[in-house]
């Protein structure tokens, strides 16, 4: 599904050059559940942003479903994100003025689906995360766990093949974290590829493969048997 071929990412900060990714090679297969671990500054977020087409590499090639998308322009990348990728963020990143349903509809607006279709899809996604009775609540009327479930619904509403979760449990207590990870597990069981960035061992262990990073390089890549 994803092939990262000797990708480097360099940030220039004044006179200093910071090599966030140093010649990284990694492939992720269809249906995998991968955790990327590492301390802050290890390059795990940068790798995740490049996988999610939010950022472009300084050098190297990125193949998404066998297509080299390194040269895609901003609009083509936006289309790809819209169609193939769902994001889950640590701070949920819901739009405060929109209610749960409208937040979930948002990606479907950009894909140009008609109103009836997108409402059905959004309702189904909210039902999947168990929030059917909260669709008219605004984010500030929902608990952290509920907000994260809305953002999962938003990520899956357009039925993407890949879900990227950036510290999805970072702002949640441990009980809620377990609920969220169960949802991600269920999604993975339905065949969606999940890539998770975390620095917590307990969370990483939900994955079937754990990649550890340090100083912009992959230092460990091993199979994991989820508990």
């Amino acid at each position, binding site marked *: 599904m994803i092939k990262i071929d000797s990708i480097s990412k360099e940030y220039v900060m004044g006179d200093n050059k910071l090599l966030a990714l140093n010649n990284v090679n990694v492939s992720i297969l269809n249906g995998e559940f991968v955790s990327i671990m590492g301390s802050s500054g290890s390059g795990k977020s940068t790798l995740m942003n490049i996988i*999610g087409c939010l950022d472009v590499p300084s050098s190297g090639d990125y193949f998404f479903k066998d297509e080299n998308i390194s040269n895609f322009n*901003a609009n083509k990348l936006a*289309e790809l*994100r819209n169609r193939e990728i769902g*994001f889950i963020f640590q701070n949920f*990143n819901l739009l405060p003025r929109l209610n749960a349903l409208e937040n979930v509809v*948002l990606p479907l607006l*950009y894909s140009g689906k008609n109103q009836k279709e997108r409402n059905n899809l959004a309702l189904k996604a909210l039902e999947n995360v168990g929030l059917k009775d909260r669709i008219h609540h605004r984010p500030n009327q929902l608990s952290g766990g509920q907000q994260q479930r809305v953002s999962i619904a938003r990520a899956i509403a357009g039925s993407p093949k890949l879900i990227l979760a950036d510290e999805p449990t970072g702002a949640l207590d441990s009980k809620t974290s377990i609920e969220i990870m169960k949802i991600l597990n269920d999604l993975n069981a339905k065949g969606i590829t999940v890539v998770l960035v975390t620095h917590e061992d307990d969370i990483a262990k939900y994955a079937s493969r754990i990649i550890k990073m340090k100083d912009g390089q992959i230092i460990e890549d091993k199979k994991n048997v989820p508990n």
Partner: protein
Amino acid sequence: MSLTDLIYLSQKSLRSNILRSVLTSLGIIIGVSSVITMISIGSGARQEVEEQIERFGSNNLILRSQSSSNRGVSMGANSINTLTLKDMEALKNELPAISAIAPRVSLSTQIIANGNNWLATVTGTTNDYFNLGNWKFELGRSFQDDELDSGSRVAIIGKTVQKNLFGTDSPIDEVIRINKVPFTVIGLLDAKGGTAWADLDDTIVVPLKTAKQRLVAKKFPGDQIRSMTINVSSSDLLFKTEKDIDTVMRKLHKISANGNPDFVIRNYAQFLNARQESSRVMSILLATVAGISLIVGGIGIMNIMLVTVTERTKEIGVCMSVGAKKRDILLQFLIESLMISLIGGLIGIGLGLGVIFGVSEYFNWKMSLDYFSLVLSFVFSSSIGIIFGFYPARKAANLNPIDALRYE
């Protein structure tokens, strides 16, 4: 993303901060209401001038006797009628620019007919009076030469007189008594409507000779007359002729160039010009206000939109992460600024209509509202929204998704 979706999202974010949105559109509100007021003042003045010309005829000067002062004591407006038919002939002969002159004597008196009575102004004159004053006949005819020459007791009446003496019945061939003298009605004049100071239709016109012999023999003895309406062949000659008349009249009445004249020349065109000029000054003033406030309003919109883009950087990042293209973001913010300016435009139109209504009621100024000004206001305010909203919108659209998402 469809337009309705964009509008829906825009109104959501505008409504989340209503006070700010309204304050932002204040410049547009003032600008648009000034534009509307300006245009309607301008076109109202133009219309009024056209109507006045329609009523009183164009290129006319009115020459009237003036109370001369006798050793510093004013003798009153009607004390001496200094104008004569001889003056009229002399002016006609000396000044070729004059195409016609209608002499006039007048009195206000009781009219009795049909068992009713009515106080009206009676004018003694010639047929030129109708041509120069733009009078049209609804019924009947003007005077025949022999009626003028022999001093026949025939009268032509205005609409107001008809209404008060005969109601809606035809007055033709009816007899009316003016100052107890019976006259036969031969014509009915078309309605002209009132002005601010007089009802023009409250009039009765009789031949000059008849009036002088039977109605005003004491008031206007000999060949004295009250005034004359002088028609000048072209409007370019109006002011020159006014001066020439002054010169000729001073010569006839033996008044030195700097002495007090016993006559006054009223130039109606001058009055109209002054009226037009003052509304033009008003319009320029309002246009300046409109221009400045539209520009300031536009800058205000740009300023607030820049603030909004900065405030919502993270949101823009979120939208981009779920698949918003540059175009989607650009349109979203453009529509937001367009909506601010259009709402400002609508409120401005409302305010402008209020001002127009208030001014025309209160000052009795003629203001005409034309739809052109409404269209113009819409075009103005929407183009300001687009022009001044474009830079902030483009700034938002050009954000890098990851930078926007990371913005705190």
